[in-house]
């Protein structure tokens, strides 16, 4: 019995330690922004990798999300003779929820796991130690730059996702449901309030923070050679996805409280 209690305590302590280390890394990466050198070139490279590199998958995500929403929305609205308002449903649901969350989940798969595997490979091949030996702060060089790139680029990618999703919805509305394009675009934009746009930009910035920091944390804490690289990559993907979904719920509740 005592052994079991000890094991539970040990396990809980392990989780507390992870939270503590994660918080410390996030704080160090954020504070890194205030100290020179800023590694601007590295930031631009990361922005290109994360932003331009993820463009194709977020376009596909947005397109199919908008098209499916138009099809499903039309079925739900048809009994009430409100099919022409399908664009309201698409624009509000995409801008407030689906765009940020789906784009972030796709980017977590592509970018977050990429960050984790790159840093993990550097960790197991002593490149992180080599950075420290050269007098470079690896957190600042690797984590701060990726943090900035994710926090800036993921909101932009989400805007693209949202725009493409509304466009995809229009394709179905125009060519499958026969809705007048004037009605579609008018209702799509009238349904949106400034608050929705704010939420739609704030959430992806938070998700960007999660994707960057979880990826970096998993990378920096890699142990056990190439097997460890695989484990870190998977852990980063799973943890950031769960954190994105959970934080989406709390952010939505938070914004509701202010509305």
């Amino acid at each position, binding site marked *: 019995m005592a052994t079991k209690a000890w094991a539970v305590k040990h396990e809980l302590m392990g989780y507390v330690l992870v939270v503590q280390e994660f918080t410390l890394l996030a704080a160090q990466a954020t504070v890194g922004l205030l100290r020179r050198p800023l590694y601007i070139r590295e930031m631009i490279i990361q922005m290109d990798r994360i932003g331009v590199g993820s463009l194709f998958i977020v376009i596909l995500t947005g397109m199919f999300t908008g098209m499916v929403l138009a099809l499903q929305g039309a079925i739900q609205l048809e009994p009430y003779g409100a099919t022409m308002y399908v664009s309201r449903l698409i624009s509000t649901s995409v801008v407030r929820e689906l765009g940020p969350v789906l784009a972030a989940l796709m980017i977590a798969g592509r970018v977050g796991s990429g960050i984790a595997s790159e840093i993990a490979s550097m960790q197991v091949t002593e490149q992180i130690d*080599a950075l420290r030996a050269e007098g470079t702060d690896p957190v600042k060089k690797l984590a701060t730059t990726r943090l900035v790139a994710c926090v800036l680029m993921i909101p932009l990618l989400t805007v693209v996702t949202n725009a493409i999703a509304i466009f995809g919805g229009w394709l179905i509305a125009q060519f499958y449901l026969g809705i007048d394009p004037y009605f579609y675009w008018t209702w799509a934009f009238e349904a949106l309030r400034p608050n929705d746009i704010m939420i739609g930009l704030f959430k992806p910035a938070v998700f960007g923070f999660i994707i960057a920091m979880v990826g970096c944390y998993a990378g920096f804490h890699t142990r056990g050679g190439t097997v460890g690289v695989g484990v870190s990559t998977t852990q980063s993907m799973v943890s950031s996805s769960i954190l994105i979904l959970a934080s989406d719920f709390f952010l939505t509740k938070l914004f509701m409280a202010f509305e």
Partner: protein
Amino acid sequence: MSDDSCMISLRDVSLTLAKRQVLRDINLEVRAGETKIILGASGSGKTTILRLILGLFRPDNGSICVAGQEIATLRERELPPIRQKMAMVFQGAALFDSLTVRENVGYRLWEQGQMSNDQIEQIVHESLQFVGLADTKDKMPAELSGGMRKRVGIARALASGAKILLYDEPTAGLDPINTFLIGSLILRLKAQQVTQVVVTHDLESAFRVADRIFMIHKGCGVFDGTPEELRGRDEGVIRNFLVPSGSAPEAARGSAPLV
């Protein structure tokens, strides 16, 4: 420090990693311009000593002085200036995968930003020429053989202008020609009065380049003296290490007396 010419000194240093005592009461001195070999079997704690000297690990107790400064008590952010007095050649070379050979070799100089590009290019060229790889500047580390990577690692250490060079198993896994070549590079640097600490278990290279040899066994220092003195010793683990064929089973069982 016992005298002014001492560049590195470890006094009663002990270290525990993952609940295992890796080093116990290590006392080691390296004088300016000296080439010191740290000799010992795999897992005896040799590389750990280099990491302690670089400040990558913090000892449980004891004192570590580098170029007259105590580093055991320094915080991570206070270490970079000390680390820039040293350069390390890692066992797997630890070249930065995302950078070309030129960028790897000039990394520290570009980071410091105190020299013009032309000056840095000149130093990079001279360093690569010193190791016989001037024509690999634009290659990526992945395009180099193991021996070439180690030589680029040495060029990176040279280009840094560090007064102290640390080598972690510089000849491990190399063919006899590359082993001889790297031994010759160390000898040329020795002739230039560069302070060098070489961790190895390659006896031939060790005796070829050493001014003094420090031998470690299971985390304890068992010998510190000249190569001639080491050859004259005939006790316990030293004999087993130097002439392994006759007593290998005894050594393998770990039953050999310490001295």
